[in-house]
């Protein structure tokens, strides 16, 4: 009798959770423009799709070893991630530059963070030919930050441009990144990106202790 009840309960839980899964993507409209992660929030432009909840981990292959690292990341795209994306990421200090195995610290200058970020990006993506077009100091949410504009060409000669705003504080390394083909898309949506950067706010929860890596993730580390 007990076994039957437990089985019925399990089936019920499975069915209910199956009926109402949280969608990975949410279309941003006038009513839900504020996208919130634990450490930050920002206004996403209307008409853009964005991840409903932040990704909290990432798997990377570093020196031929697959590793799971914790982070907070939200992604937005209007026409599809294959075309263009805005990615907002918070990395914790110990894994701030994961591919080059460098940590961040509160004393790091924006210029130092920008140099490490470019190296990390080149190593993480295998894009040796990623070129830095400009690198200048800016402020993001009142903090001293960098603004990098980078570009690379794919094998067919199509140019893709990336702009990244980033800053470091004692809670980690934050980047707001926009990537799009130079042809047509980059200029078209740059103003949406610039608005999103201006709306970025760090939340007080960012100063909570960083989470522990869960047991399941250690299996892949």
């Amino acid at each position: 009798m007990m076994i039957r009840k437990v089985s019925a309960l399990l089936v019920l839980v499975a069915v209910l959770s199956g009926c109402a899964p949280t969608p990975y993507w949410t279309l941003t409209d006038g009513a839900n423009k504020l996208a919130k992660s634990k450490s930050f929030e920002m206004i996403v432009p209307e008409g853009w799709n964005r991840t409903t909840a932040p990704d909290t981990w990432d798997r990377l292959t570093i020196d031929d070893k697959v590793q799971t690292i914790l982070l907070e990341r939200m992604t937005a795209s209007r026409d599809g991630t294959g075309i263009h994306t805005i990615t907002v990421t918070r990395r914790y200090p110990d894994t701030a530059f994961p591919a080059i195995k460098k940590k961040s610290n509160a004393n790091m200058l924006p210029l130092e963070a920008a140099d490490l970020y470019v190296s990390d990006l080149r190593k993480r993506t295998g894009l040796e030919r990623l070129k830095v077009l400009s690198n200048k100091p800016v402020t993001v949410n009142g903090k001293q930050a960098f603004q990098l504009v980078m570009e690379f060409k794919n094998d067919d000669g199509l140019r893709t441009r990336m702009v990244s705003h980033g800053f470091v504080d004692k809670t980690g390394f934050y980047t707001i990144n926009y990537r799009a083909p130079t042809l047509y898309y980059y200029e078209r949506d740059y103003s949406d990106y610039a608005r999103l950067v201006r709306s970025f706010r760090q939340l007080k929860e960012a100063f909570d202790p960083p989470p522990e890596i869960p047991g399941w993730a250690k299996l892949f580390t």
Partner: protein
Amino acid sequence: MNRIIGLVLTLFIVSGCATTGGVTSFTNAADTSSVRENEGRLWHEAGGFDNTIERSGQIYDDRRATDYLQGVMDRLYPEFKGKIHVRIYDSTQLNAFALPNGSIYFNIGLLARIENEAQLAAVLAHEAAHFIERHSFRQRVSAKNTSAFAVSGIPFSNLAAISSISGFSRDLEREADQKGYERLIKSGYNPLEAHKVFQALANEVRILGIQEPFFFSSHPKLVERIETFKELAAKHKGGGRTGAEEYNRFIQPIRLEALRKDVGQDRFKSVILVMEDQNLRRYYPAAGYYYLGEAYLRRDQKDDTQKALQAFKTTERLAPTYAPTYKRLGMHYMKIGNKGQALQYFNKYLSLASSDAQDRSYVQQYIGSLK
């Protein structure tokens, strides 16, 4: 039935022997116009690979250095002038490779490590021998016969690029060594320089533990290359053109660029290896010490901050007009709270850096915050 099987086997063996045996080497540029059918397809693939490299911006744009390399090639193989094209490939990996259509790519990483023209000629002669002896085509014919590449899972269409970049079979490499070496002597270069370049690369590959699947990074192949060149050198006296001065005049800016890229791609170990070794660093410009300092900061081990500071001070002394040094020294003094020194170095940076230097606005901001 047995007769039919016997006939099929005979045909199979005969056809296998005929295809590999029928490939002869090119003797001059005009000879290459006879390329047809399967080899023509191989050239077509190579042309596509050339286009991809060009389109994706991987050609290192230095006309003077490219012309110099082409000049050395034309001196080695005057009969192939206009058929063998040398280009500089914008990668710091220690590699050079020849495509079946006569395109030869030389990475800036390898150019930076070579000491003189005779060593450059040794590598160019080796790579050109792959083209002249039609090694890509012979390797393809051989692969078709043995199905070796089908087993290893390499798509056949990419074979031209793969074999060219990652190296040929042991026998073909040895043949390229032999033919290249003969040409090196015939062209008046000092043959005793040949093994030195491979010896230096083998040391670097061993110390850094490089495991990239590239010809010059493959340690067993390098060791074999050194042995072959030592055997060949034993039969000849030294003497002939070395061309250290001319080589360094053209390649000096590339050395600095290779160091900059190595730091930017997190290959700081390579920079430290080169710049800490007085034999290796003797051909590098004094501004190379700046990148040694950057490499120490990237490595970030005990005492590396102090070592970096020393390297920046050395650059200040030996290359006093190299602007980035003053930015780094300014940042160092700003971080330890020495405002006066920091301002002095930042101002010096602004006076030396070009008006479009990327870090100029950061330095202006730092000066503003210190005042």
